[in-house]
């Protein structure tokens, strides 16, 4: 299994996507996002997607020359149409625009549609937090939606409807929350099927609405579905999911879950807050540090060595992989090589 330094992997990605017709800055938005997913340990959203996206460009699913376009604009808000570009291109553009607006006006919201799949939703609030803002993001899957049951129902009617939040810390990587409003992401069920493993009780139901630990019964025909977040209070996960539908889908302009069989694009709403419009930055950092210190005085639960902040596991994996490199499985590397050959990129 080949192992790459993140830098080498990025270089490969830049060359591949530029050869496929992306502008250099767009190739960078996509590749940096995917390599960061690998660094964070989310390999299923990482470099494995190089060949899938390259193939998507060949098949006409993504338009590498498209530019996101501002459809409406006001001082502290905007509506962006991704123009069918790669998802990260539209979302990075929207995040940059929201930051520019928030810096002047204190708060800004930008919505985004027609942007295919934006990838790891936490990436965009993280961009904002690294620039000193707090940010919140909602992303639905447009009219798609049959993976998650509504509370009180037994068939899938919603998508995993993720939301994300990030906030800067003094002298550390930001606090980063990136979560689906279902118990788990759908990808984890696929991974269990591929590995022939069972899934924990409480993740999913079969097509009859009965709890199951067999991941194949979730992806059978007729399919089962994932449960909304919450366990004994799953009405809360369902409520959060409906909030994401309204914010990302209805406000974002990509539409809400309606049972469409094919995914077209995420619908996205991103709100950015400029901290200094509300409070002094030093006060902000003091409050945050005091809270973190307080939380960490708790005794540990069995099986835990320390209390981590949201995002900390990912940043630790990233530091480790920055040093040790990122492993890419042979199958994925073969696929990437074939795409490179197709676009005339030397390995």
């Amino acid at each position: 299994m080949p192992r790459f330094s993140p830098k080498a992997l990025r270089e490969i990605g830049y060359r591949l996507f530029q050869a496929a017709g992306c502008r250099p800055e767009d190739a960078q938005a996509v590749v940096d996002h995917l390599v960061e997913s690998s660094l964070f340990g989310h390999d299923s959203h990482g470099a494995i997607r190089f060949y899938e996206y390259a193939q998507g460009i060949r098949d006409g699913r993504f338009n590498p020359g498209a530019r996101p376009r501002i459809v409406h604009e006001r001082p502290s808000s905007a509506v962006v149409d991704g123009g069918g570009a790669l998802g990260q291109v539209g979302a990075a553009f929207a995040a940059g625009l929201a930051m520019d607006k928030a810096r002047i006006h204190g708060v800004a919201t930008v919505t985004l549609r027609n942007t295919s799949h934006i990838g790891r939703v936490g990436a965009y609030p993280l961009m904002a937090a690294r620039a000193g803002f707090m940010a919140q993001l909602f992303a639905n899957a447009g009219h798609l939606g049959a993976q998650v049951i509504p509370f009180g129902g037994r068939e899938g009617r919603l998508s995993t409807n993720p939301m994300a939040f990030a906030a800067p810390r003094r002298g550390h990587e930001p606090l980063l929350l990136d979560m689906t409003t279902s118990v788990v992401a759908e990808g984890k069920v696929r991974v269990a099927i591929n590995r022939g493993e069972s899934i924990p009780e409480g993740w999913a139901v079969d097509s009859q609405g009965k709890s199951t630990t067999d991941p194949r019964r979730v992806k059978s025909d007729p399919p089962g579905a994932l449960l909304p977040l919450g366990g004994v209070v799953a009405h809360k996960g369902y409520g959060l999911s409906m909030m994401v539908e309204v914010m990302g889908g209805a406000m974002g302009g990509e539409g809400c879950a309606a049972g469409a069989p094919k995914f077209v694009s995420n619908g996205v709403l991103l709100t950015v807050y400029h901290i200094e419009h509300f409070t002094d930055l030093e006060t902000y950092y003091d409050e945050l540090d005091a809270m973190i210190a307080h939380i960490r005085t708790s005794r540990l639960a069995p099986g835990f060595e320390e209390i981590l902040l949201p995002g900390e596991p990912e940043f630790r994996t990233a530091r480790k992989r920055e040093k040790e490199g990122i492993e890419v499985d042979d199958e994925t590397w073969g696929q990437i090589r074939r795409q490179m050959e197709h676009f005339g990129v030397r390995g």
Partner: protein
Amino acid sequence: MPRVQAETLRRIGHQLFEAAGCDAADARVVTHHLVESNLFGHDSHGVIRYPEYMDAIRKGRFQAKAEPRVVRDHPSCAVVDAAGALGQVGAAFATRLAMDKASQHGVAAVSLRNTSHVGRVGAYPLMVARGGMIGQAFVNGGRFGNQISPFGGIDARLTTDPLAFAAPRRGTEPIFLDMTTSVAAEGKVRVASYAGKRVPEGWLIDHQGRSTTDPDSFRTEPGGAILPLGGIASHKGYGMSLMVELLAGTLSGQGCCVGESEMVSNGMLLVVHRIDHFIDPEDYYQEVEALIRYVRSSPPAPGFKEILLPGEPELRSARRREENGIDIDDKTWSLIGADMDRLGLPLPAAG
């Protein structure tokens, strides 16, 4: 147990709070909020608080005459200091300000501090949605907090950190979500304890971090903790709790949870979006209604008759109780009577 009409409870509230020094508009805000809690079925946040608030005014913990003041003002954001007013007075002021700003600029964020206890958090996004816009609210307990364990820990270190959301529908009441980022609100554990009942598995751990259904093992020293929302994925509830702490605590200036034992005031952030600055309202309403029809097309799970929207159980309870009246326990009714008596006001007959 007397059964009292909502309108009667409102009239009593107006009289009490006006007599205690609130101006008529403020008395109305507080009273409507509390009676709506009863209507929604959340009796622990309803008129049971009349005597408690009256006592807080007498003792100077709540300032009946305080006027909320805008301490930082920008076109689409502001910071409000409620100057120790009753919580609902400060929060309603901040909500109206956010609505005014959002109707001009499409989005607005207003933070609020020094406002004592804002009550049911969902009330404020609901005000926004009834005004045709979308509202979000995040509320922490300032520096107070020792109820919820962090993910990976067994000691209570956070508060219930609620968040709320409401969005308008065409021709009917809004969708609204009002939830703690812990499994359960602290009040529900207290209610179970008073009633001598157990709580469901998955709510609590005792002082040793062991799962328990005994509410007193949370409440008596050395106390246990309520778990963050999420069950087998409770790192998500913990993450949301920290998000609420940051949005509500830092941006308002009320501060974040550091384990103080007394709550001085909630910190709050209100975020309002005006729909037609982002999308044609026709498209918005069409998508939302189509979503609702689609979600409801799932067959119900065993034990359920139908699939309800977030907020629907509360709104149904309100229709029922508006018509039939609200049962008030004897103790609360006599405390309210004592307050009326003290002010020389006649207590209206129940019924």
